[in-house]
């Protein structure tokens, strides 16, 4: 699929409404949690993740004010959130989730043992994901969130033909890390 075609999948400026047009409120309710979760997967703090999620929705809202019609608002919102994250990262204003924040967040869990175990596993997962190159980390998270190759190409701004190769390379890297470092732990889990 060409880049132009991919763009038209995600973002259409045409005035004709798509078949399943969703209002802003519907999009907000449907995608708020998963977008916030994506921020958390990028290792942002809960607060920063919520801020960036709100910012992404605000931009979506402002685009709607300009009569822009979106065929795929979900992918567009992920793209905006990822760009906001990158801007944060580049300007060093990023607020990463530290161990205390993570523990605090997981204290919502009722069972203390389960909570401790969960915190430890999350810490390991975050550590391993963040040890990967930025592009590998992003493509794995998008893949995990169920995006198609065309959508991933548009969100990441890469050639659609190279998505498969980039994805396989990222999977191999993460798999090797898991197998060499934490294999036993996840075999039990």
């Amino acid at each position, binding site marked *: 699929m060409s880049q132009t075609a991919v763009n038209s999948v995600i973002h259409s400026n045409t005035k004709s409404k798509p078949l399943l047009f969703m209002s*802003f409120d519907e999009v*907000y309710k449907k995608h708020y949690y998963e977008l916030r979760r994506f921020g*958390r997967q990028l290792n942002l703090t809960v607060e920063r993740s919520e801020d960036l999620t*709100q910012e992404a929705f605000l931009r979506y809202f402002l685009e709607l004010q300009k009569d822009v019609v979106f065929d795929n608002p979900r992918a567009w919102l992920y793209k905006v959130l990822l760009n906001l994250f990158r801007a944060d990262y580049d300007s060093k204003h990023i607020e990463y989730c530290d161990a205390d924040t993570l523990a605090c967040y997981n204290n919502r869990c009722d069972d203390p043992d389960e909570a401790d175990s969960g915190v430890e*596993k999350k810490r390991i997962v*975050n550590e391993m994901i963040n040890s990967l190159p930025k592009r590998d980390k992003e493509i794995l998270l998008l893949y995990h969130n169920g995006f198609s*190759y065309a959508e991933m190409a548009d969100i990441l701004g890469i050639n659609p033909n190279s998505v498969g190769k980039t994805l396989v390379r990222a*999977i191999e890297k993460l798999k090797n890390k898991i197998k060499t470092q934490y294999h036993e732990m996840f075999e039990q889990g």
Partner: protein
Amino acid sequence: MRCLSRVEIQKYIDNEVDPTVYGEMSEHIRNCSGCSALHKEAIRDKELITGFLSLAEEQVKNEAIPAFKIPAEKRFAVSYKWTLSLLAAASLAGLVIFIRIDRKPHESAIPEAEIIKMEYLDGNDLNKLWHDKSQILIIEDEKGNVIQTTVTY
């Protein structure tokens, strides 16, 4: 069909291959031991990665979605655009009116030189016009010395 690469296998398990070749690939994977092993490995990798990443997912327990709020500065930014456009249009209209009001009709006398110029442009002889319409005023003293000369129209 030739053997499949790891990337092609990945696309196959992710349903990212052309539907026309999907059946052909399925058949090849069934019959080729190498590709079959690669296919199983790709599925295992996918499960491993999915399971691994799922561990870090947060659980949402009956949390209310926070209300969407437009920050004041953004609200201002939206209205600011329209306000600015209106102000620009009003200023332009005011400027046009001001210029039109300031312009006076040509009721006052047109200078003679302008009349000569217009007549010349109409095709009359400039020298003749000059002699007909101008006067040279020469001021002399008692001894006949010229003190001042003035051309009047």
